[in-house]
């Protein structure tokens, strides 16, 4: 019986981490449903990007208010989580404040956790006000209705409660230390919770212990629940921002990839010695490559990683010229749709013992409409605005490729333009032989 709390703790810990691990595996499998893409180049540049953009938050502070508040919550969560290490050790060994022997260092650590916790609470409250009272435009776009809005708020509530539990735990502990309660070593400094402690001054030692223990248990259980909430939430960015900035685009923003499958065919068409009948006897016995993307499995895995990384901040959409002028296109929605469809495909695979059974749906049409795709000016405002190197433009381009090359479904104006290029080497109906006429015109 003596070890019941330790065993309970261990079971909760294993369950919490185990369930998270199961979801991470699913996440990995879903991302790998994407086509392979070679991103093994420019390793040092990629590490630098990750350090600068994800770790250093350089793109967050482009918008100073939200950037600054985000840094507080980000730093707060990383630093305060050092405390989780102590909680886990205490929980398993049945100790209390196992690092207390660190002395002044411990005081400093606990003191900084407390100040950060308070700052996180303040930031989270401001975030909530921005989302719910001020209703900043990027948080109330159509794609934010329903679950995405709720998700954003749930995250803020959890963070608020976790920080409050942490401070309550410390406040009760501080009060217990003051009344020389058994097992409660005098350790740590409590710059914030010392102001909470007086609220508990009337409480008996037993009630204080119950309060401290309850806060302690709820705090750690809350953290494990939050960990498991990630997979079902936009909040996954706290983990995926790192790989995503590493695998993010290295090339100039204006550079689109050249489809290799097209290159092969073009080279063959241009090669006078190519035997048009030889193509089918080669090793390409499988189905020919589909051009472009109509569903998530046609995208590459970095694009799918992008989709899971998106935290729906909407900076892309608020910079998008099409969206600003009232068009249907929202780059954030492109990413959310990609993620939601990928999740749907993933669930399909889970249900059917690892196999994807056709569900008659796809990303194009069922999630993303052609009207959205054709509104893009490819200006790269969205990719520039994204604080975690997500590239909605590449998905839009791939879907346009499918529309044009597989479906011949371009708007008629564009068909005229392309017909002109094909016939006279210019997007307008002018003769190529007249290309130098300007020289002699006045």
């Amino acid at each position: 019986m003596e070890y019941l709390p330790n065993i309970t703790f261990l079971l909760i810990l294993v369950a919490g981490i185990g369930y998270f691990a199961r979801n991470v595996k699913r996440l990995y499998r879903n991302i790998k449903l994407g086509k392979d893409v070679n991103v093994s180049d420019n390793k040092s540049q990629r590490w630098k990007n990750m350090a600068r953009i994800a770790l250093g938050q350089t793109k967050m502070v482009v918008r100073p208010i939200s950037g600054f508040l985000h840094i507080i919550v980000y730093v707060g969560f990383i630093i305060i989580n050092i405390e989780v290490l102590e909680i886990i050790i205490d929980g398993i060994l049945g100790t209390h404040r196992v690092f207390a022997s660190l002395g002044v260092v411990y005081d400093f650590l606990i003191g900084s956790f407390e100040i950060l916790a308070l700052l996180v609470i303040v930031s989270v409250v401001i975030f909530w006000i921005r989302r719910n009272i001020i209703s900043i435009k990027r948080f109330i776009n159509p794609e934010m209705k329903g679950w995405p809005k709720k998700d954003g708020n749930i995250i803020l509530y959890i963070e608020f409660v976790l920080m409050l539990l942490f401070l309550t735990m410390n406040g009760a502990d501080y009060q217990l230390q003051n009344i020389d309660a058994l097992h409660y070593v005098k350790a740590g400094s409590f710059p914030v919770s010392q102001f909470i402690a007086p609220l508990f001054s009337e409480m008996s030692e037993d009630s204080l212990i119950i309060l401290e223990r309850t806060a302690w248990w709820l705090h750690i259980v809350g953290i494990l629940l939050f960990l498991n909430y990630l997979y079902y939430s936009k909040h996954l960015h706290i983990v995926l921002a790192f790989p995503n900035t590493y695998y993010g685009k290295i090339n100039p923003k204006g550079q689109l990839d050249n489809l290799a499958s097209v290159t092969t065919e073009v080279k063959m068409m241009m090669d006078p010695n190519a035997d048009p009948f030889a193509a089918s006897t080669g090793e390409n016995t499988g189905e020919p490559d589909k051009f472009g993307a109509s569903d998530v499995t046609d995208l590459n895995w970095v694009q799918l990683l992008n989709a899971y990384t998106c935290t729906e901040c909407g900076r892309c959409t608020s910079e998008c010229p099409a969206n600003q002028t009232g068009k249907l296109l929202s780059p954030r929605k492109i990413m959310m749709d990609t993620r939601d469809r990928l999740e749907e495909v993933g669930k399909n695979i889970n249900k059917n013992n690892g196999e994807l059974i056709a569900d008659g749906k796809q990303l194009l049409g069922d999630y993303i409409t052609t009207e959205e795709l054709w509104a893009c000016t490819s200006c790269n405002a969205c990719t520039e605005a994204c604080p975690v190197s997500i590239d909605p433009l590449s998905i839009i381009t791939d879907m346009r490729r499918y529309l044009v090359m597989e479906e011949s479904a371009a708007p008629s104006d564009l068909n005229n333009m392309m017909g002109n290029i094909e016939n006279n080497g210019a997007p307008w109906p002018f003769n190529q032989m007249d290309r130098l006429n300007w020289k002699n015109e006045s």
Partner: protein
Amino acid sequence: MSNELRVPTMAELFAEGKQPEVLFWVGCAGSFDDRAKKITKAFVKILNKANVNFAVLGTEESCTGDPAKRAGNEFLFQMQAVTNIEVMNAYEVKKIVTACPHCFNTIKNEYPELGGNYEVVHHTQFLKSLLEEGRITMEGGQFKGKRITFHDPCYLGRANGVYEAPRELIRKLDAELVEMKNCKKKGLCCGAGGAQMFKESEKGTKDVNIERTEQALEIKPEIIAAACPFCNTMMTDGVKNKEKEEDVAVMDIAELIAKAEDL
């Protein structure tokens, strides 16, 4: 005036066994669009004055394939690219200058993988280097003290990180360079990119070029400087729509310089 333009073609120089220092890639807009042709001629006048040994492909030039690629037609793009690369490689082209950021981006970034490796510069970069090498001298002249704002073309700015070359040239005109609320990395698109130039825009509350023109007019410039033939068209249309064409001119950087030099 225009009769005095010296515009040698690669074929002519090749026949004489000569190689120019740079190929001027005129582009479709620069060749056919009435407004853009003026930019082409202004740039050639500067090249002539600086005695730059250049040539054009003339009738051997063809669309880079940019609008086709952005529209999703990778086939057409690569056909265009491979054909153009074949022509340029045959002439052993090393360096290319173009006044169109779309051509610039495509040839610089997307041609290498298909076998076309050239040093590609935008005309604002080229003009800046001519200035630094002392091959052209610039005095503000008629633009001295004028309020000029620069509209960043997406395919020059964000797409390729060129923000300073055009601005430096404007400053060299002794003009007062004023910035719009969205500039450089945050520059708002004119609405023409991604093949939008060639189609009706989707349903919305406003056209992108009007939004951008409003941003420009907000800071009361005398001239909106552009560095892209498509931006030029979009901004010119925007200014006309706002009935401000009497007060605000839309001019390419090359035109500003040519005019300052009385070319």
